């Protein structure tokens, strides 16, 4: 007889959502989190897209600590001296409230409390070492030499999956599996944020950046999200390229980003209040561990469920949905947990956007993490814009001629631009 029906490792969005669903289904659930309180070990942008949480916490937005709703969304290329952006502001987007800007320190604590309210036993400040496997079946978890038993375990341990690695259930991570995220939280008065980012008190600005100004082969994206009275500013850098470069400190990429003239302005007079770093799953399908086995399921970042097409970065919604689907799978197979019955988890993921998106966008990394997207595109766009807006009293040219000249001046062939551009559009 096991001590618990289910042990959930990690009280982030995936783990807490799973625990809520399981507790609602009458299961005896232990939710274990090494942060005390939950959220103190987690790092994220963060924008929570969509409304998946309403499946386990109806009316969740009423009590959740939401900083602002995304009403201005930007995607921008930064070159050394310029910024070329797509900026989308929309009252419809405000009404839809699709993007919720959150601070994970507050949010995760709130969601874990919801799990506790639903009836899960929440234990914090406890670090799980590995799964306990007996006769090919997971029978519980190991914590500092002690075994806690359960019929099933949901692994929701996040982007640095030590339990899976220690249990021999996935290989160590490599440069291609994850990128390095570095983030700063900067204090700015609420009214300054409203004016500076042209949003009202409920509205928020969320932007992703391509850091085209970085030299020596370094590839990195950036992000800026407005919280209520702080700003989240960060980078997501390729470890592969950082290694090939071999002489740039990761934290100096963050330094260069915050010193960029068009970023510096946005955080002027801000007071840095926290520095943080975390791995970001980037490898997609190729990096995914086995998602289930006899007695365990893998969810959220630990399963590498993230989405990034350069326009939007998502992960929390995938975590919540995978957590709920894992819980459903266990609830439907109470008393008959096996590798075969738990395999239905994958069917559920395939029928949802979680695995559909990962299959649809398989290989997107080759586009988002390419020199074409991160270096050539920004330079060409910069040349085009400059030609169009720098009036020199000369006869004007058609856009195609301007583009052609920009392509040539950046050492590219027109045909290369068309094929790379086509490949990019197809993958995005």
């Amino acid at each position, binding site marked *: 007889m096991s001590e618990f029906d289910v042990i959930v490792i990690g009280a982030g969005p995936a783990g807490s959502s799973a625990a809520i669903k399981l507790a609602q289904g009458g299961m005896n659930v232990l939710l274990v989190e090494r942060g005390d309180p939950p959220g*103190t070990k*987690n790092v994220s942008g963060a924008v929570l897209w969509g409304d998946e949480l309403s499946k386990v916490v109806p009316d969740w937005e009423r009590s959740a600590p939401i900083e602002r709703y995304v009403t201005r969304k930007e995607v921008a290329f930064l070159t050394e001296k310029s910024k070329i952006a797509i900026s989308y502001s929309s009252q419809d987007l405000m009404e839809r409230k699709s993007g919720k800007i959150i601070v994970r*320190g507050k949010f995760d604590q709130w969601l874990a409390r919801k799990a506790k309210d639903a009836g899960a036993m929440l234990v914090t400040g406890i670090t799980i070492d590995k799964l306990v496997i007996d006769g090919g079946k997971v029978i519980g978890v190991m914590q500092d030499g002690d075994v806690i038993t359960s019929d099933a375990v949901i692994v929701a341990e996040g982007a640095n999956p030590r339990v899976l690695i220690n249990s021999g259930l996935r290989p*160590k991570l490599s440069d291609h599996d994850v990128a390095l995220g570095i983030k700063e939280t900067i204090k700015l008065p609420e009214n300054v944020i409203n004016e500076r980012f042209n949003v009202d008190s409920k509205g928020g600005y969320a932007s992703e950046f391509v850091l085209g100004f970085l030299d020596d082969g370094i590839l990195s994206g950036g992000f800026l999200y407005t919280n209520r009275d702080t700003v989240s500013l960060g980078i997501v850098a390729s470890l592969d390229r950082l*290694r090939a470069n071999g002489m740039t400190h990761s934290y100096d990429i963050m330094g260069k980003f915050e010193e960029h003239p068009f970023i510096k302005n946005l955080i002027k007079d801000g007071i840095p209040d926290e*520095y943080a770093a*975390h791995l970001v799953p980037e490898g997609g399908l190729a990096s995914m561990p086995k998602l289930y086995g006899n007695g365990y399921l893998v969810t959220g970042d630990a399963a590498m469920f993230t989405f990034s097409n350069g326009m939007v970065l998502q992960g929390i919604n995938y975590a919540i949905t995978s957590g709920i689907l894992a819980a459903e799978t266990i609830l439907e197979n109470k008393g008959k947990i096996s590798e075969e019955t738990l395999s239905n988890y994958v069917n559920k993921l395939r029928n949802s956007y979680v695995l559909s998106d990962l299959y649809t966008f398989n290989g997107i990394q080759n586009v988002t993490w390419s020199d074409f997207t991160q270096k050539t595109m920004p330079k060409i766009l910069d040349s085009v814009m400059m030609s169009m807006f720098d009036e020199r009293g000369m006869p004007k040219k058609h856009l195609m001629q301007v583009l052609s000249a920009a392509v040539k001046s950046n050492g590219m062939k027109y045909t290369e631009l068309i094929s790379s551009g086509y490949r990019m559009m197809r993958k995005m």
Partner: protein
Amino acid sequence: MKIEEKLSLLNYKTDRSYAHITIDPDICATCPDHFCVFACPANCYTLINGKLNFKYEDCVECGTCDIACSHGSVKWTLPKGDNGVIYKYG
């Protein structure tokens, strides 16, 4: 703002009796790249007169150095219990 100042913004509960990450100085002494020094976002790895110096106290538990070290020197575990970095915002 320098990295040292940024790190000073962080709160930790430091486990004085257990270093959750250790390195093998013999391996590091012959390492050709010392990529850990460049990869670690918390400046835990530094070269002092060509010798690798590691301190776990500033670690933010991201796991980057475990990936960065391709020479088998880094032994990576999580801090025990609730020790380590305590993020306010995260």
